[in-house]
Structure formats: structure tokens, C-alpha cells
């Protein structure tokens, strides 16, 4: 498997990470996500890492990067389903991912993104959410 699938669900993108991440895979993912957002005009990115058991600072950075890139492109990012051990490791590594939103499950994350999208729909970028 040389790339992580990025699925489109309406105005959202769904990414489920189920394999051990390595450098090439992470760079490919960043590339894919940014392209998909511009292609589909997505308003939210949902990254499910519930099956990720091991993290290092590189993956933590990758998550923060994806979130920052998406924000530049006008999409919110939610990381869902982080395991307790993973959360503890990230905190011990000093990575609190300040710009990333989190949720307990895919359901909760989707709800969060849709509410955020509904709020911004009244704002300046309503022409894009109609498109």
C-alpha cells in the first residue's frame, strides 16, 4: 500500500489511517489532501486514527501540518479516535497539536465539522458551500 485513501463524503473528506505511517506515506497524504480540498471544495477534513497504535513526533507533526494546510485552504480539520496511549505519548513528546480539533468518534467529528460549516455558511464564503 503506497498511499492512504482520501474519501469524499459530501462536503467533507474522510481519511482513515490504518497502517504504520512512514515519511513517504505522510508526504503523499499531505499532497493528496491539499489537492482533494481544492478539487472538491471541501469544508472539512476528518482524520480517523483509531487504529493507530504507535506515534512519534513525525506523525504528530504531520497531523499538525495537514490541519494547518487545510485551514489555509479554508477547511477545518478534526482528528478522531485517538487511543489513550497515543495521546499520552504525544503529550510526553510535548506536542499538544494546538491548531487541531479533536473528537471521540467519527460520528462526533462529523457533527462538529457540519456545525462549523453551518456557522461559516452565513459568513463570507457562502458561495463556495453552495457550489
Amino acid at each position, binding site marked *: 500500500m503506497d498511499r492512504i485513501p482520501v474519501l469524499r463524503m459530501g462536503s467533507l473528506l474522510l481519511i482513515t489511517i490504518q497502517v504504520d505511517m512512514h515519511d513517504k506515506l505522510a508526504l503523499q497524504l499531505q499532497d493528496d489532501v491539499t489537492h482533494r480540498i481544492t478539487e472538491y471544495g471541501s469544508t472539512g477534513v476528518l482524520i480517523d486514527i483509531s487504529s493507530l497504535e504507535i506515534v512519534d513526533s513525525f506523525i504528530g507533526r504531520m497531523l499538525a501540518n495537514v490541519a494547518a494546510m487545510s485551514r489555509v485552504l479554508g477547511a477545518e480539520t478534526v482528528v478522531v*479516535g*485517538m487511543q*489513550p496511549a497515543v*495521546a*499520552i505519548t*504525544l*503529550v510526553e513528546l510535548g506536542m499538544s497539536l494546538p491548531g487541531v480539533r479533536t473528537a*471521540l468518534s467519527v460520528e462526533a467529528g462529523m457533527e462538529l465539522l457540519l456545525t462549523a460549516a453551518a456557522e461559516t455558511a452565513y459568513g463570507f464564503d457562502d458561495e463556495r458551500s453552495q457550489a
Partner: protein
Amino acid sequence: MNDLAEIISRNADSIRKQWMAEMSGSVQRTDLMSKTELDEQCRAILESIIEGVKTSGPTNVSGPGWDTARQLLQEISASRARQGFSPTEVATFVLSLKQALFSAIRTAHTTAKNQDQLFDTVWAATELVDRLALITTEAFTATREELIVRQQQELLELSTPVVKLWDGILALPIIGTLDSSRTQVVMENLLQTVVATNSKYAIIDITGVPTVDTLVAQHLLKTITAARLMGAECIISGVRPQIAQTIVHLGINLEDVITKAKLSDAFALALQRSGRAVVRQGPERASGISSLLVKKEE
């Protein structure tokens, strides 16, 4: 030096009797152990001492000839530590052998004119008993130490319950000082329960934490950040006035954390955020004088 070994083995019975008598005056605890048991222990120790003096000499207590004696003393003092003897009582158990030994030496040397030899033997006996007493005390302390470690472990497991207040709302009352090892247990407990119960809100109540310094605050912030990474929101409650002052004086940054004075305030906030409200459905059901008081108040 086999002089001492000979004296002890020849007078073993009388030494033991005097030893017992010596002890009964000061430390014998009939409530904790019977006289026959004590007698048995004294006999075993004396035998092992004779063996030790004969094979390795009276001063070389760490030598191989003393293995039995050392082991025996360690076992006895360990069992006494568990039974609740005081350190003095355990040390005196061995030290009271000295008097018995001295009188045995004295009777053996009544006819001898050689004062030097007498003195040598007495000195060897003193040194021997002192070393044996040290072994006893060390074993006693080691057993107590073990006991303390085990209790600490138990305390650690006992003191970090995570309770479910409502569907999706957890509470974690922390009682006692938060150190690194406890924070680890608290954090793991909390995060595991968050996943298991799918709770979005966790209230950390620090009413039972005596002091909050920078280290404790850092531990708390770590826990909160880890919970946030998983998608749960933490509220700190039970901040006492003194603790609020300390936090500000120390310059601890709790800006990004929601803090409340009482657990009830935090619970109300969590209910409100999850779109719930507690509504009173009617007058409070009370009886007698208390109902009158309530009415007056209203």
C-alpha cells in the same frame, strides 16, 4: 578464639536460660508470641551461633560459617516486624544475649589467672553480639521498608477512581498530592474511561489536593491536553481560594483551561454544553418543620 566457642557450647543450656530470664524482664511480649516459641527460637539461634564460632570464628560474621545464623536472625526479625514488635524489642532480643554470655565467660575463667585472655574473650563476645544485633536491625528495617512500598502501591491503586456522573460526563476526584507516578495512573485511568464510556466531558475535582505548585499544575495540564487530543473536554473544579491565589502568584497559565470553584458548577456547565438542563418539576418534598422553613424561604 575457639575459647568462646567452647564456652558457649559447654554452657548452652544455662546461657539460654539466663537469656530467657533476661528477656522476660524487659521485652517478652506474651501477647504476640508464646514462651515455648521463644524458647525454640533461642535454642536454634544458639546452635547456629556455636556452629558459626566454630567454623568461621567469632568476628567474621559475614563468613560462610555464619550463613545459618544470619538467615535465622533475618527470618525471625522479619516475622517480628510483621507481628508489630518495636525496633527496641527486636534489638534487645539479641542484645540481652550479652549478659548471659558474659556470666558464662566469668564462670569459665574464675580459676584462670590470665586477665588478658579473659578480656579477649569478653571483647570477642561483645563484638559478636553487636554484629548479630546489627543484622537483626537491618532485616527489621528492610521488612518495614517492604511493607511501606506495598502500602504505597495499594494507595496508588485505590485513590484514583473515575466516576460517571451522567451519560457522557465523567468526574475524577483527586485526593492527595499529585506526583509524577500518580499522574501517570490518573491519566491512564481517565483516558481509558473516556474511551470506554464515550464521554465528551471530564471534570477533574482537586478539592482533595492539598497544594498546587508549578509541578502539580504541569501534571494537570498534561492530563487535560491528552484528554483534549482524544476529543474530550476537561473542566477543573474544586479550586479553593488559597489555591486560586497560589496559582496566580506562581504565574501558572491556566487560561486555556476551564476552571470552576465547585464540582456542582462544573457539572452544570458540562450539562449545559451537552445541551441538557436540570429542571425542577414541583415543590420540594419535605416533612415537618423543614417544609415550613422551605416555604418561608420561598
